[in-house]
């Protein structure tokens, strides 16, 4: 089969990378770090693992660059959507904080 050599990378090596990254993820959540650092680290680790699966298990590394663009587009849309939703979310949170305080406060007679 032509091209079979480069089409089958060392899958076991990829497996061990993924397993090690998963262990690091678990370690990170118990690490004495501030919340922002933990979130950034976890996002980076998840993206690294997803990239390994896409590049080697799904053979994206050996496909054309345009197919890579097809694959990365949903990630960009989802990331954009988070930032589109944040202003609305913060506005709702700001309004409901006042309502919640009024509800939880004892009624004055």
């Amino acid at each position, binding site marked *: 089969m032509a091209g079979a050599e480069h089409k089958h990378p060392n*899958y076991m090596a990829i497996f061990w990378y993924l397993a090690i990254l998963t262990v690091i993820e*678990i370690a990170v959540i118990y690490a004495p770090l501030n919340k922002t650092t933990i979130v950034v680290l976890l996002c980076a680790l998840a993206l690294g693992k997803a990239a390994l699966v896409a590049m080697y*298990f799904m053979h994206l590394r050996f496909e054309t660059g345009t197919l890579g663009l*097809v694959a990365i587009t949903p990630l960009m*849309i*989802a990331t954009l959507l988070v930032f589109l939703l944040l202003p609305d979310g913060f506005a709702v949170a700001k309004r409901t904080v006042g309502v919640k305080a009024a509800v939880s406060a004892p009624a004055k007679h």
Partner: protein
Amino acid sequence: MSPSASVHSAVEPAETPLTPESWGKLGMWIFLAGDAVGFGVLLASYGGMRATSADWPSPYAVLGINLTAAMTFLLICSSVTMVKALEWLGKGDRSKCRMFLFFTLHINGNPWGASLFGTSFFLVTGFHGLHVTGGVIYLVSMIRYVTNRPAPAASYNAVEITGLYWHFVDLVWIMVFTFMYLI
């Protein structure tokens, strides 16, 4: 050119520049990109709501992280058995391919995992569980397909496309596990 392309040349006269080996592969990639938008929207909405909520519970205080981490590990294992199935088929060994497809099927078709995925964070995990169920049915049909094709090379393309779907389910779980269980 892959063996499958030569086998299917009669029905695939034109090659797509994106995936010269088969149109089927391009079709699966486009489906997966659309499906990824679906998951992306669900996760982005979850992230948006959570980031702006004052009293969101800490997931690892509520959910069983260690068990889920073990399940995540199993899902990664099933991706490895899937690529091994393809590798053996490429070498012309149909029975080893079937064996690894069988392993892939059983690693994730376990009811323990299904109940865990199905009961917590129902919308996203349920949607993912639905994909796993679809994948299990897909794998069962592929074992039959590989068995019935005259030569190992004749089913190479179809098994590779099945692998794309299965690895995508694995990839999505990597994201769900991080965003809904760990963060």
